[in-house]
């Protein structure tokens, strides 16, 4: 990635190399090329160049806007502008570094904090860990009647507010609030509502507290993890949590009415610690090697080497070592090959040893 500003002269140099033509002629041709695009644009409003793209004249209608400096309303006059749409071939070539990404449908309860903590690894971990924790949770919850609700709520918010991205806030608030509010309730609770009203009030109250606390802990844990994962200083946070957790664990056992707050905290902490440890373990064995972003496998070692000879392709090397052509990208990543179509002759390729994530 050089990110240089190229001029017509540079293009002309390229033409000289490709076509063995004098530089002057090449430069003239490049100028004529763009000039002609401009001219034809005026003639026909649209110019298509195969492999490059489409230039179009687009009429922009008059619209109102506000002057940035004075704050006055101003009228932007109608004008014509040139729009350029790159040809699919060029578009894909430009987007090659990101070509492997696809649009994904998010699940309803996917929290956006995961976007912050780069590895997708943290996502499954937090959910599984917090679920385990929540199973042990019910003990302290039914005991306190209505007090604990407000406590996990403020706790989870400050935790997720400063550390995770702002989008997560609106999620935290409404969901936690639905717990205490009698009106907007999940279908399950509405079913219970249809039962004799006097009894249900007692019977589903603990349930609501349970859900409220559970949600609070879930978001707290997620925020906690997201917050600690953003800075790369992983080891430091792991140490601190390991020191905390033994002290916090007994507190969870001795859960009394007033101890719900620390209990909730401690439950979140082991969860956070577990998953940080889990995520830390994985990178540590893979750190020595470059990794394919978004891939299903870690590169954990070198399986062998292969010298590029005429007739060999990354594809058939991939098939030879992995019985599938899907691993070309790992070979590319391992050997720092940017363009898989161009591999220098006699290059010694390292074949990565893979391990499923």
């Amino acid at each position, binding site marked *: 990635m050089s990110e240089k500003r190229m001029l017509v002269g540079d293009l002309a140099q390229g033409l000289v190399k490709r*076509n063995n033509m004098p530089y002057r002629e090449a430069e003239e*041709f490049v100028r004529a090329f763009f000039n002609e695009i401009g001219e034809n644009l005026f003639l026909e409003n649209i110019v298509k160049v195969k*492999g490059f793209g489409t230039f179009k004249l687009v009429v922009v209608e008059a619209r109102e806007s506000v002057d940035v400096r004075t704050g006055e309303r101003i009228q932007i006059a109608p004008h014509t502008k040139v729009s350029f749409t790159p040809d699919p071939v*060029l578009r894909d070539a*430009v987007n090659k570094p990101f070509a492997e990404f696809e*649009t994904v449908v998010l699940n309803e309860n996917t929290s956006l904090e995961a976007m912050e903590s780069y590895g997708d690894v943290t996502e499954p971990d937090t959910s599984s860990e917090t679920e385990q924790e929540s199973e042990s949770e019910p003990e302290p919850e039914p005991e306190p009647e209505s007090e604990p609700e407000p406590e996990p709520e403020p706790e989870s918010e400050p935790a997720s507010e400063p550390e995770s991205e702002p989008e997560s806030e609106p999620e935290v608030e409404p969901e936690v609030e639905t717990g205490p509010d009698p009106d907007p309730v999940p279908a399950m609770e509405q079913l219970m509502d249809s039962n004799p009203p006097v009894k249900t009030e007692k019977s589903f109250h603990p349930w609501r507290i349970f859900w409220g606390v559970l949600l609070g802990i879930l978001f707290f844990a997620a925020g906690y993890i997201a917050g600690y994962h953003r800075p790369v200083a992983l080891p430091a946070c792991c140490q601190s949590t390991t020191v905390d957790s033994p002290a916090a664990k007994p507190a969870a056992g001795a859960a009394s009415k007033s101890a719900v707050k620390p209990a909730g905290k401690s439950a979140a902490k082991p969860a956070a610690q577990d998953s940080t440890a889990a995520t830390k373990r994985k990178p540590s064995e893979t750190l020595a090697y470059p990794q394919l972003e978004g891939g299903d496998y870690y590169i954990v070692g070198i399986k062998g080497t292969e010298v590029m000879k005429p007739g060999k392709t990354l594809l058939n090397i991939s098939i030879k070592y992995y019985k599938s052509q899907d691993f070309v990208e790992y070979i590319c990543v391992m050997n720092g090959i940017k*363009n898989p179509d161009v591999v220098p002759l006699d290059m010694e390729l390292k074949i990565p040893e893979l391990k499923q994530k």
Partner: protein
Amino acid sequence: MNNKAFISNLAYVTDHSVRDTQVLVNSLVAEMTSLFEEDNSLVVPSFGTFEVKKKLERVLLNPVTGQRMLVPPKLTLTFKSSNTLKERIQKGGEE
């Protein structure tokens, strides 16, 4: 105007044969593609600037189904017309 008409116009202007022009245009396009693949920007005086820009990933909401989609980041090629070209357009192509 399609590619063919453009090539023949260009051939007329540059005094090349249509076939030669086609070859030259192809290699010019290939050259530009390789430039943009390396994230270079291209400035063409009195025409405009081509630049590769990174669009960040974003979350889309489908208003009908309420589904949230995560759109991946991407690199796109953008074109900004130069002032001289803009002025010429406003004047209707006369110079």
